């Protein structure tokens, strides 16, 4: 049965072919059915295969070889799919959440004229992501990595006639490329060190390799993760990526592609366990990213930007978790985050769809009565994100991370806890401004209505998952069964052992912070309208910095983008036109012409000159024979 795993990749690719080549003729209904249908089928296949995983021989994994890909001398790479707990967990998340988003997108894109192209790219993305997570070697991982980057570019810039969207697509791809450069170097280093790129073989040989080399490999691979998972300093592409259609933001920039970096580190956990300093660096970057992104989210008024910075912040949590060695906790949070973040994005899209593509929360208000299902699901998603105690999935996963960090670094723990407080605050700020209070834009409000079931049903399903999804990872220290830890045990170990006291303490602290954040948001945005109208007053001198996202984009513009543009202009005008075209190419032509004219001088047409040259030639020959 596990042999069928290749179907999960083949089905979406089939969708790509059909929608790509025949899409326009088939019409939008069929585009949607094929697009979503292939992913639903892929999910069912994943479910079937995942059911088999527990029965597989230690470490609950098997490899399904597809074919030999590259065989050059000793460089031998096969295209094989690895079926094990980690890869199947990712596959289930990708296909499951992906299927729901595809179904939602059928409704969301109902007015768009390029529906076939949309579903083609979306299916291509699912296939690429599955190649990434199912591959059994670093080269397959890298191939999937690059492919999802490509799909991200294509989908962000889907409405490419809009300059902002086209620019955002370019920005995403280029910033990712910077990370991919480091990642590629890491893969090369793995090859030269181990002579193989296969996971199992690399991990077996790893303990015998010099620590310095392992550190180099892990830090280089992590550079790739910084780019792909939008950590500081390569986070800048994610907020701009919101120019793409909302289902894209939900799928790629919340649930799946950005989690590829986390997956990669968890997959390589045996390497990271051997490089403690690198792991600490990873944790620090994660913690800082989580905090700084949360602060920016506090003042954004574009709902999708709030969610984008929230994603960066939550990814920071996951990176923090892998940095302290809590690999199962990171995967747990990855899963719950996929549920509630996709939910939040889809619900935001639902609001946008109803409000004529307006996304500025300063023009919203009072929508809870007009869009009940969207409101309730968004609320559930917000509660999960904030980590509302006991009933939301986000609570359990975030709590596990917090419990694992406290042993390693008190500073990071404080940052993480502060971030939790800010998270609750900013998401409920968004909720209160969007759904509660008086409508700020009466005309928009009047035309708003709830969306069709094809859009609301996925919201409901994701909301349910955001509530119950946490129960598979109940804290072990409280003597409760942690099913996820057990499932992932063969591939990735759980973090530290947490004492009962610490666990209970953290549950209380994080609950207080979550409720406190929600309460503060309620007080500011519901009770103190004067503060709400003039947000700047709350933050004082920091407001401008926060709204401008710490001026990171401007900084990069100054250091990289503008010099790059100047270099480009220089190379284009002076080198390309001036040097190569004018000097070399034209110059060569002119030189040839000049030579031609010199030799043309010999063709006088006067017989006498010709006879003279014959005579001179004879004399020379004569002298030659005379001298010999």
């Amino acid at each position, binding site marked *: 049965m596990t042999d069928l795993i290749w179907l999960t990749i083949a089905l979406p690719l089939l969708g790509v072919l059909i929608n790509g080549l025949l899409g326009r003729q088939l019409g939008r209904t069929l585009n949607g059915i094929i697009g979503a249908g292939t992913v639903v089928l892929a999910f069912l296949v994943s479910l079937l295969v995942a059911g088999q995983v527990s029965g597989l021989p230690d470490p609950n994994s098997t490899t399904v070889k597809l074919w030999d890909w590259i065989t050059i001398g000793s460089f031998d790479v096969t295209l094989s799919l690895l079926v094990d707990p980690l890869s199947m967990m990712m596959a289930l998340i990708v296909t499951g959440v992906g299927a729901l988003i595809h179904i939602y997108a059928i409704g969301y894109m109902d007015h768009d004229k390029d529906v076939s192209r949309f579903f083609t790219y979306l299916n291509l993305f699912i296939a690429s992501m599955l190649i990434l997570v199912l591959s059994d070697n670093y080269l397959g991982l890298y191939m999937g990595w690059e492919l999802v980057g490509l799909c991200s570019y294509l989908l962000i810039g889907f409405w490419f006639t809009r300059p902002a969207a086209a620019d955002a697509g370019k920005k995403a791809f280029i910033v990712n490329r910077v990370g991919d450069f480091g990642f590629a170097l890491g893969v090369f280093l793995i090859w030269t060190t181990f002579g193989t790129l296969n996971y199992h073989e690399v991990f077996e040989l790893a303990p015998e390799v010099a620590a310095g080399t392992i550190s180099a490999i892990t830090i280089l691979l992590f550079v790739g993760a910084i780019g792909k998972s939008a950590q500081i300093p390569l986070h800048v592409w994610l907020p701009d990526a919101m120019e793409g259609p909302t289902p894209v933001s939900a799928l790629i920039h919340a649930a799946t592609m950005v989690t590829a970096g986390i997956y990669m580190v968890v997959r390589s956990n045996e390497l990271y366990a051997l490089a403690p300093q690198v792991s600490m660096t990873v944790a620090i970057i994660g913690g800082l990213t989580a905090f700084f992104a949360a602060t920016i989210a506090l003042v954004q008024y574009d709902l999708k930007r709030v969610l984008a910075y929230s994603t960066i912040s939550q990814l920071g949590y996951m990176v923090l978790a892998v940095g302290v060695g809590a690999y199962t906790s990171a995967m747990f949070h990855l899963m719950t985050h996929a549920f509630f973040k996709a939910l939040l994005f889809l619900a935001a899209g639902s609001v946008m769809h109803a409000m004529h593509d307006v996304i500025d929360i300063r023009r919203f208000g009072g929508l809870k009565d007009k869009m009940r299902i969207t409101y309730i699901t968004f609320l559930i998603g917000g509660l999960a994100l904030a980590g509302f105690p006991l009933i939301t999935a986000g609570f359990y996963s975030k709590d596990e991370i917090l419990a694992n960090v406290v042993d390693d670094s008190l500073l990071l723990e404080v940052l993480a806890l502060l971030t939790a407080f800010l998270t609750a605050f900013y998401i409920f700020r968004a909720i209160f401004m969007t759904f509660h209070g008086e409508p700020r834009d009466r005309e928009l409000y009047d035309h708003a209505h709830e969306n069709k079931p094809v859009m609301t049903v996925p919201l409901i399903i994701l909301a349910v998952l955001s509530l119950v999804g946490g129960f598979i990872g109940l804290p072990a220290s409280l003597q409760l069964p942690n099913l996820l830890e057990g499932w992932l045990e063969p591939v990735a170990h759980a973090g530290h052992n947490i004492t009962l006291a610490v666990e209970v303490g953290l549950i209380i602290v994080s609950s207080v912070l979550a409720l406190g954040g929600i309460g503060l948001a309620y007080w500011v945005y519901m009770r103190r309208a004067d503060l709400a109208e003039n947000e700047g007053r709350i933050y004082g001198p920091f407001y401008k910095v926060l709204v401008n996202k710490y001026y990171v984009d401007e900084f990069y513009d100054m250091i990289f983008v503008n010099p790059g543009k100047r270099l480009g202009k220089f190379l284009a005008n002076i080198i390309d036109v001036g040097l190569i075209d004018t000097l070399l190419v034209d110059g060569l032509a002119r030189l040839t012409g000049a030579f031609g004219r010199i030799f*043309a001088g010999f*063709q*006088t*047409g*006067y*017989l*006498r000159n010709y*006879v*003279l040259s014959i*005579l001179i030639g004879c004399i020379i020959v004569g002298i030659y024979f005379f001298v010999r």
Partner: protein
Amino acid sequence: MIVQTEWYLLLAAILFTIGAAGVLVRRNALVILMCVEIMMNAVNLTFVAFSREWQSMTGQVFVFMIMTVAAVEVAVGLAILVELYRHVKSVNIDDFDSLKG
């Protein structure tokens, strides 16, 4: 008293030079043809001189060849010259410059 071979060769050389100079310097195409004849006669003289020195008939036989070729050449050359004159209306070789460039 036999005339030494060197004097024949010297005469032939002088004749050849005169002929060559004439080909280079003269403008009249007819005169150039005549100078070519002079050159050929110089060569004949050389051949005959050596034939007498080495008591070999080869030289003299070859002279026959040369004379035959010379005759043919003059015939053809004059025919071409007449045709050229009909077109260019001049026998000045500087006027036959259509190969220029």
